[in-house]
């Protein structure tokens, strides 16, 4: 009893600067603790390793790839459809390009797709969710959430295909198409959280002390939605990569000769079963990328889950 009084007395005598310092220290400690929790799970660490490796390989593709020129309009018909060998690790495609090199370059557009789409959809999706949730049961809520429901009425792939099909097929338009269909998932997630958080005492306290709406939305409610948002993002990036590969598989994404995993699989499918490596290795590359992000995502989810427990 005595101890707690003295410590609370002690705390009240701290200066603002000291409090901030303590806050920073505790935040650092929290990050350290989360990392410890994350690193204790070998599967999550493996996911992180896979993701980091993929990112590095894609980033340094021009230096890592054995035949960087093969990522462009290159032909070598003498060496076409060669099976995997010491010269061509994963074989060559129908016009003699090294598949391993093309996979490395293809991963670039996959990763770019995931990153660009998420950075386009998360801010507006989250903002709309915050607004609708905070103004629960008002016309703002009704308007935002009814529009959200409309976009959620059809699986995102179908509408993304439709939008991509009316635009000129290329990587940027396919990103637009997927982004246009992806924000509602974040709106709905944040909406659910915000409707619950708006009744918490700290929000009410901020309201009665006259805090601005922006302060309440971004400084009070938003910080409490970050961990579910991050968890969803880490799992979503894999989905976006899959959908992107599907768009390019049907010819609505990256255009040849630019390599992309989806188009490589689609081209290779024509040479099944005899030249199986043309389709199978890019397919495995997608599986590895998606697996990596999924393991990482699960690790992040568990990390935050145990934090709340």
């Amino acid at each position, binding site marked *: 009893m005595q101890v707690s009084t003295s410590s609370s007395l002690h705390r009240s005598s701290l200066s603002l600067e000291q409090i901030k310092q303590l806050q920073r220290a505790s935040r650092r400690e929290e990050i350290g603790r989360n990392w410890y929790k994350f690193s204790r799970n070998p599967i999550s660490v493996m996911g992180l390793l896979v993701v980091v490796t993929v990112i590095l390989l894609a980033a340094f593709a021009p230096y890592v790839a054995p035949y960087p020129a093969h990522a462009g309009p290159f032909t070598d018909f003498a060496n076409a459809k060669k099976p995997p060998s010491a010269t061509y690790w994963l074989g060559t495609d129908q016009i003699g390009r090294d598949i391993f090199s093309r996979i490395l370059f293809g991963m670039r557009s996959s990763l770019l797709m995931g990153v660009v789409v998420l950075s386009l959809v998360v801010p507006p999706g989250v903002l709309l969710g915050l607004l609708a949730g905070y103004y629960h049961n008002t016309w703002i809520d009704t308007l935002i959430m*009814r*529009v959200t*429901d*409309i*976009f959620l*009425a*059809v*699986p995102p*792939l*179908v*509408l993304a*295909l*439709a*939008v*991509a*099909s*009316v635009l000129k097929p290329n990587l940027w338009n396919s990103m637009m198409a997927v982004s246009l269909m992806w924000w509602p998932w974040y709106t709905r997630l944040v909406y659910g959280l915000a409707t619950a958080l708006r009744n918490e005492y700290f929000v009410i306290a901020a309201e009665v002390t006259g805090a601005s709406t922006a302060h309440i939305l971004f400084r009070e409610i938003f910080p409490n939605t970050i961990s579910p948002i991050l968890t969803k993002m880490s799992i979503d990036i*894999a989905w976006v990569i*899959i959908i992107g*590969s*599907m768009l390019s*598989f*049907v*010819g*609505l994404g990256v255009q040849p000769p630019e390599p992309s995993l989806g188009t490589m*699989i689609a081209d290779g*499918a024509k040479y*099944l*079963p005899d030249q*199986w490596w043309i*389709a*199978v290795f890019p*397919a495995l590359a*997608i*599986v590895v990328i*998606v*697996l990596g992000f*999924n393991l990482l995502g699960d690790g992040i989810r568990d990390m935050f889950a145990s934090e709340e427990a």
Partner: protein
Amino acid sequence: MSMLRFLIQRALYSVFVLLGLSIVIFVIARIMPGDPARMAVGARAPQWVVDRLREQMHLDQPIAIQYYYWLRDAVRGDFGLSLITQRPVTYDIKETLPASLELALYAALIAAVFGIGMGILSARYKDSWIDNLSRLFSYAGIVTPSYIFAILFILLFGFALKWFPIIGRVSENVPLPPKITGLVTVDALIQGQFSTFVDALWHIVLPSLSLAMGSIAQAARITRSSMADNLTKDYIANMRALGVSERAIMSRFLLKPSLIPTISILGLDIAAILSVAFIVESIFNWPGMARYGMNAMLYKDLNAISAVILVFGAAFAIMNILVDLIVAYLDPRIRLRAAKGE
């Protein structure tokens, strides 16, 4: 009574959502550069034909009026002519929808049987090799897109092992049974054409399995975790204390409540199955609505695109209502709440 009210509310809301969707689709269809009338008659048609058609299609009117005409026709089931087939889109959809439904139905069936089965085994023998194997399988199922499964299955079961055919609904020399439901396997059975039934069943294995893989994995994961959750509940401990056998606990008291989340997810998955069918149907040359829609998209056949997406929206809405009904049937708490009008 209030269950009925709930149903009506849901149905009305679905109509509202579909209306909204129709606006979205209409806008998408109209942002496309190019003149739909010109596209419909081709590049070599004289200008006056195009102008006449523009008038007929109300393309000379403001966009809101255009939408009104489009919606009026759509409600009557008239989506105009398809550019690719030169037939009414509604006719094409009637022709192709059953094939997609059949595929989705089998995929859902496979997903439910194997997914729930694997989930139960996993929960029953938790942390054994069965559990580990099934979890590994689930992970593979979740991270592999269905079109990649399609390609791997074609390679393995189609070419290498030659167990299953890889193209179409029936073999070339097998005539399709006279149409009753449009589902070839069902029609063949009704009319006693057993060999046709077997042939069609053989053809549907690979495409439906490719579509189902992801759902099997999801269903197994959710069944396992929800059974594991429920296993620690007091009522199960109570059953054990009363000396009820483990088998009876599993089958009578644990399974039903544990299946509720699985069924909700599976219901939504069926809609997702229909959407990835867009690509899988093309790979297997399956004459379904999704392949039709895919072709429509590749050839910018706007009437067909709009109709296919609306049919998808409707199917999704119906699935959602069905799932709610099934879940309410399985979970008496929801029925009670609905009865109290909450």
